């Protein structure tokens, strides 16, 4: 008996095929990991199960839920299925909840819709469910509003809504992607526990192979709307047969070859000394406002050719630190020296001269370009920092050269940013940062939004540029896997302070601070998880 049985599901929108004869099944109490890169059709598959496909989509094939054919059912019939038999949790905990409804009412709403019980009875169910997902009554009364909760707690409420009616099938669509690693680990544990207790089927949709390796019983790999490989988790991770899944695994663990020599004897390119950045808090009626210290007495140095990673969870102050280092915000105390010159106190021409040496690549490949500017104009924007701006012809020549250096055709200059993919946009952002020949580039989660294969390419490009140009990098990220692959030294930040600092390999091998230990333990580690799978297998064989 299966909870979900998808047979030869095909779906197209207009003339574009989105899904091609996908067949999948989920057994009760089973966790199916559905992995693939963006556009592979993994989310569309789950939406098809819920009957939430776009209006113009044409669908063929059969979807059985609990042995009942639900594909082609009327919307009214599907509405009954949604919530009662299938629950879904989405990625973004900030937008999944209604901000003006209490958490109790939001959970109770689902119960009342499907069971037709009184408000009081529904709230009693809500209370019990919230207890189950780890939001106990004493700290999380039903009258709490979403804005009073953290991201992980909101995701727990979303899970509570999804499981309130003990559905047979739960779909988690990148449900832990937006969370910090420690929170992610807790939410994954919660999901595993619920599956075990209720005998639900769970489809875990994610791009993160490490998460799948530690959570799923079975794995299905999708590419371009097709199911390329499916099987037992251990079998998939130890003996992938399809070239695409093999490539996916290789990209996920990709470590670029780095040849750049760190010049330890040379004067440092970046020195941060005792940096403090405070924000004025809410002003009280009487007395002074409470100041919030986002960055608390932080010091760091980066040598020429060195890659330094700055990691920490959201709200730890790493972004604020980065903005202060880039002189986008003025610190209350401390200095930031770029090749010996203080960027925090400089102004006018002096500041421009310093900015030439420190540039930045931001996370969002979609938000970091003015949509109305051509790529050539965007890349040339940093010529503003030069004392003498080059002539238009000269500028264009240098932009074209730079675009070729980052692996784009020179003709890219005439196009607009929206004509490029996420990875290509990150190349454009790198070209823009490099055009003034800087000594340090700060990378603010610069590869976090990219698919693993694209991420591997960008990391290779960065390593290559570093060895050719002797660049130093400051990697600001929450992703420890990336940092491990590309940095020489690692700084761990917590609550505005650097709590641990050391050679990357040494920190990973023997973290000394409790917070670092907690962070490393919570980070899904593909190699470790595959090792664990193997060990467990040998145990059962014996």
């Amino acid at each position, binding site marked *: 008996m299966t909870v979900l049985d998808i047979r030869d599901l095909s779906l197209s929108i207009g*003339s574009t095929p989105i899904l091609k004869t996908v067949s999948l099944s989920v057994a009760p109490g089973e966790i199916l990991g559905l992995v693939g890169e963006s556009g592979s059709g993994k989310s569309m598959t789950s939406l098809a199960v819920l009957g939430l496909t776009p209006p113009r989509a044409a669908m063929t094939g059969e979807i059985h839920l609990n042995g009942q054919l639900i594909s082609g059912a009327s919307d009214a019939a599907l509405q009954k299925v949604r919530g009662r038999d299938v629950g879904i949790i989405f990625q973004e905990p900030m937008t999944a909840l209604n901000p003006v409804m209490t958490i109790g009412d939001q959970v109770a709403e689902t119960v009342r819709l499907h069971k037709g019980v009184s408000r009081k009875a529904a709230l009693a169910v809500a209370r019990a469910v919230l207890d189950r997902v780890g939001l106990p009554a004493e700290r999380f009364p039903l009258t709490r509003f979403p804005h009073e909760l953290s991201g992980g707690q909101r995701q727990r409420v979303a899970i509570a809504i999804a499981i309130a009616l003990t559905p047979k099938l739960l779909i988690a669509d990148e449900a832990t992607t937006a969370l910090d690693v420690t929170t992610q680990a807790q939410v994954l544990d919660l999901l595993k526990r619920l599956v075990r207790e209720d005998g639900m089927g769970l489809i875990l949709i994610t791009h993160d192979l490490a998460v799948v390796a530690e959570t799923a019983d079975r794995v299905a790999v999708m590419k371009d709307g097709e199911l390329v490989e499916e099987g037992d988790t251990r079998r998939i991770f130890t003996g992938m047969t399809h070239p695409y899944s093999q490539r996916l695994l290789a990209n996920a663990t990709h470590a670029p070859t780095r040849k750049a020599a760190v010049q330890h004897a040379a004067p440092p390119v970046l020195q941060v000394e005792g940096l403090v950045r405070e924000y004025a808090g809410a002003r009280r009626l009487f007395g002074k406002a409470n100041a919030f210290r986002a960055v608390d007495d932080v010091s760091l140095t980066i040598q020429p050719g060195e890659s330094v990673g700055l990691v920490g969870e959201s709200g730890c102050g790493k972004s604020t630190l980065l903005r202060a280092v880039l002189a986008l915000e003025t610190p209350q105390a401390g200095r930031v020296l770029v090749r010996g010159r203080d960027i925090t106190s400089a102004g006018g021409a002096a500041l421009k001269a310093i900015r030439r040496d420190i540039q930045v690549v931001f996370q969002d490949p979609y938000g970091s370009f003015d949509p109305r500017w051509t790529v050539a104009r965007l890349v040339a924007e940093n010529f503003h920092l030069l004392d003498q701006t080059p002539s238009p012809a000269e500028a264009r020549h240098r932009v074209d050269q730079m675009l070729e250096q980052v692996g784009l055709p020179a003709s890219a200059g005439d196009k607009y940013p929206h004509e490029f993919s996420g990875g290509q946009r990150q190349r454009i952002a790198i070209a823009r940062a490099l055009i003034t020949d800087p000594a340090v580039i700060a990378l603010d989660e610069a590869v976090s939004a990219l698919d693993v294969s694209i991420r591997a390419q960008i990391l290779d490009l960065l390593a290559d540029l570093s060895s050719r140009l002797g660049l130093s990098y400051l990697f600001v990220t929450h992703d420890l896997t990336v940092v491990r692959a590309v940095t020489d030294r690692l700084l761990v930040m917590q609550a505005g302070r650097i709590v641990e600092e050391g050679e990357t390999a040494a920190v990973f091998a023997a973290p000394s601070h409790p917070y670092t230990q907690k962070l490393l333990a919570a980070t899904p580690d593909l190699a470790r998880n595959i090792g664990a799978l193997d060990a467990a297998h040998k145990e059962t064989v014996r």
Partner: protein
Amino acid sequence: MTDAPAPLALTATSRARWPLSLVVGGVLTAVVVLTALIAFVWTPYDVEAVNIAAKLTAPSAAHPFGTDHFGRDVLSMIMVGAQNSLAVALVAVGIGAGIGVPLGLTAAARGGWVDELVMRGNDLIFAFPALLLAVMITAVFGPGAINAIIAIGLFNIPVFTRVARGAAMGLWTREYVLAARTAGKSKALISIQHILPNLMSLLVVQAAIQFAVGIVAEAGLSYVGLGAQPPMPSWGRMLAEAQTMIGFAPWLAVMPGLAIFVTVLGLSLTGDGLRDLFDPRVRRER
């Protein structure tokens, strides 16, 4: 949808499908603007020529919109009145946008006390009933088209300031603006190069709406005798003069009333249509 694999052609056709409100509004507005322009070179009759013998004739072939109590041709007066209405509203919107947008951009760029000062100044103008303010200005400086323009322009300023500031505040947190700052550009330069162009669609929509509001405001001021002075024809004053004769010469009120109605409707529809055209969310739902 056909199965021709031509994504480019598809976007082109969806682009070509303009919102209906924009088409209708554009046509109405064009008719009014054209009428005003024609009036510069030709009107059926001289608007100042008094012909007591032909006074208060109902609409006819000779006088399609009839004549008033001095025997002046109503159609000619409405044509010339269109010049007055459009000119006042246009310049008033120009004043509002010309002062309001830079103020809004500055408030968003500088923040702090500059922002407070600008926005509280705005509140001050907003808090005053617009027409009362206009009456006050014209009462102090004397009635006339110029003072009407200034009065209407003044209460357009806060509207544009708010729109520009609100949208600019959102843009200042964008990464491309941060990137421009690391390129060493000043806040003023970023406002001009990155912020303003990305606000343009919003401002054009607001301008069309304020244009319509300006037409009504001008008519209102003229109605109470504070707008353009005789013998310059004006829609609002024509309405006021028609008041006592509405029983036996209704066309005197209906015609200028219709002129105001068509102009405001045209401009409002244009504003709505432009917003639909610029807003991809609305565009997709159509």
